[in-house]
């Protein structure tokens, strides 16, 4: 009956779809809702408004026109909110168009002049361990954001990567100034002295959004996650050409395979020796003739179809090709993060431009991408009990961020190992607490 079918579509059934949270960012929200937030209190305290009511279709009533124009006015007001910096706590960065350089010797103290002689010869190398793509330095890094962003050089300045600088400027936390060399002062190329002229948002996008491997898709993903509180760092796969560092440590794989050789294992091995499994299935039953002491034996003999074991150490295939490469490491806000020694990331993200790559990645592309991620077996206590969670979690996983003109969809891809879940070995009790997979919102 089509009717009941449709009703089921419209009415959220009790289990699955009741869990779907309404993702407010899915659609355009009425900006009038925004004005409910009091801007007088500090921004972090503000709660996000509930979704507003929308009309079905336009009608020529004055009422509707008024509401629409009020919405547009609210949007106009919200978007024209200026980015201002109080002089007391303003953080000023300076754009360095040629990358990290040492400060000019004139500004440094007398004591440091002696060690200054070398840096002036090869400015980009002497800067320490600052990333070569960094292009904005901050002399007074007083913000919580620097806990997860930027790299310090020997002169206590923090260098920001293009995406970090642009994100901070966009959220109004950083005022970036042009260097003197870029705004018409007659100075040499390498001078990155502060010109006091602030960079506009437009200029910052022009300067940073295409710099050092950044593009607008990657930046959309970066800011979207940063806004939600995740810590996002570049992964080794950032540079399209660069060979990926072997992130394929054979760490956990060893102890997984060496399992379950207890007393029962010895017994079963003994039994196997007594009645060796016949490999010939052409004559006689697939399960083989002979003694069958348990159903497990029969089932294991019946499993004649080969399956893929993600934990098996295969010889590495082709390296992951752009864009199916991990470009971001993402950490949950709850994960303790140290800039100097970042922990293992919670998520690995590859960014795909949906306009440039219109088809789903091929198996070899996905395989190479998954192979570039370390083994992440479903080992938590909860997962050891729940079969469906284990299958869903998989043994390797990666998140694809598909960007369609600024709208980002996240897909989690994991390598499930159905062959490793031997159902016949499961106790009947284990299936009582059934886990229902939660439908993902996006």
């Amino acid at each position, binding site marked *: 009956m089509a009717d009941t079918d449709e009703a089921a579509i419209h009415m959220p059934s009790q289990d699955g779809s009741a869990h779907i949270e309404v993702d407010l960012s899915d659609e355009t929200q009425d900006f009038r809702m925004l004005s409910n937030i009091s801007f007088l209190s500090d921004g972090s305290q503000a709660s996000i408004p509930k979704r507003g009511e929308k009309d079905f279709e336009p009608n020529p009533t004055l009422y509707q026109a008024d509401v*629409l124009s009020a919405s547009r006015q609210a949007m106009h007001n919200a978007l024209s909110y200026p980015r201002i910096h109080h002089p007391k706590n303003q953080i000023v960065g300076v754009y360095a168009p040629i990358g990290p350089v040492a400060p000019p010797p004139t500004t440094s103290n007398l004591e440091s002049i002696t060690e200054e002689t070398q840096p002036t010869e090869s400015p980009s190398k002497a800067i320490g361990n600052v990333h070569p793509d960094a292009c904005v330095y901050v002399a007074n890094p007083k913000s919580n954001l620097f806990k997860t962003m930027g790299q310090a050089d020997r002169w206590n300045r923090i260098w920001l990567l293009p995406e970090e600088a642009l994100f901070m400027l966009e959220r109004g936390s950083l005022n970036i100034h042009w260097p003197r060399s870029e705004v018409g002062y007659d100075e040499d190329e390498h001078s990155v002295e502060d010109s006091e002229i602030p960079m506009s948002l437009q200029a910052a996008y022009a300067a940073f959004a295409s710099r050092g491997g950044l593009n607008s898709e990657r930046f959309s993903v970066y800011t979207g996650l940063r806004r939600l509180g995740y810590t996002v760092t570049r992964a080794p796969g950032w540079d399209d050409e660069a060979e990926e560092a072997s992130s394929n440590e054979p760490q956990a794989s060893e102890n997984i395979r060496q399992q379950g050789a207890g007393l029962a294992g010895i017994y079963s091995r003994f039994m196997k020796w007594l009645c060796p499994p016949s490999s010939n299935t052409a004559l006689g039953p697939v399960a083989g003739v002979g003694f069958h002491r348990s159903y497990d034996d029969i089932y294991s003999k019946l499993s004649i179809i080969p399956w893929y074991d993600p934990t098996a150490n295969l010889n590495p295939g082709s390296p992951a090709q752009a864009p199916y490469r991990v470009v971001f490491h993402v950490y949950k806000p709850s994960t303790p993060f140290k800039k100097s020694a970042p922990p293992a990331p919670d998520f690995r993200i590859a960014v795909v431009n949906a306009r440039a790559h219109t088809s789903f990645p091929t198996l070899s592309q996905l395989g190479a991408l998954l192979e570039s991620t370390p083994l992440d077996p479903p080992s938590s206590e909860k997962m050891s009990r729940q079969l469906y969670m284990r299958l869903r979690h998989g043994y390797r996983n990666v998140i694809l961020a598909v960007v369609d003109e600024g709208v980002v969809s996240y897909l989690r891809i994991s390598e499930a190992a159905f062959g490793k879940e031997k159902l016949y070995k499961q106790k009947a009790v284990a299936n009582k607490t059934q886990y229902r997979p939660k439908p993902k919102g996006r």
Partner: protein
Amino acid sequence: MESDPILLPIPISYIAGSYFLFSIDAVTYLRREHHICGVLSGTLPQIPQQNVFLGLPLKLMPEEARLLVEKGVACIVDEVNAQRAGMRALAADDRRKYLRELEAQGAHAMRLQTSRKELQREEALRKVQAKKAAAAAKKAGADAAPDAAGATAGSDEPAATENPSRRASTTTTNSEIHAPYGTTMGITPATSHPPLPYSPATSTTLPPPAVPPSYPLFAHLHADGYYLSPGLRFGCQYLAYPGDPLRFHSHFLVVAADWDEELDLMALVAGGRLGTGVKKGFLIGGAEHTRADDAGIMGEPESVRTFSVEWAGM
């Protein structure tokens, strides 16, 4: 909405393979007059920790940018080169003028903020006072419960006499506190219009953007008054809204097809079911090949035919 008339053509910044608008006036103008919404992709500085309300810049689809260029409303600017060349060519006078302007704006912002803080403080003080007065009145009322009439009169009076005096005192302090004129707010402007000129130099303008083959359908629906936005997240190419998405839900999931393209029946079923499931029509359409474009063969928006698929319950 804004008093200043918009200067046409509006410069659209081409940066890192995408089309951006940075001017709020241009954004509201295009939304109101040309049904171009784009996708807001920036962080709102007033509430930076969320993804529901986003801010400038506005990201335009290549289709939207192309449409505006064809209408003569906008032009495409190679922003990276325009910025670099423009800023390098700044003269000392320009710099000084720009800095003075920013300083004036910063001082204004500072005055606004200090006066707002003052107001807030006053408000808070008044609230505390009102609370105190209410508590006192309650206490007085409880004490003189038997003699009710006298008690209310008695408690009313001190509150009434107290308030004006306090208010007077706060206003005097208010008038004493000036905005600290010496200090100014640092400002990050949204656009580079001052100091750079509004209209770009001809050397930095770019040809109209390359568009996907779905462009005729896009232009056709847009001409019919629909507001279109990217729809991959919802399983289609575009979402078609009957009015401004600020106020209306979308009606159609739009997928473009070639004129002679063979359609996979499964795709039709999937699209139809998806659309019906979210109470929208699944719209499929395309243009007859009539015009050879520099970007390839392209149909006219006028020759576009559209079909909508809906799951009917029988």
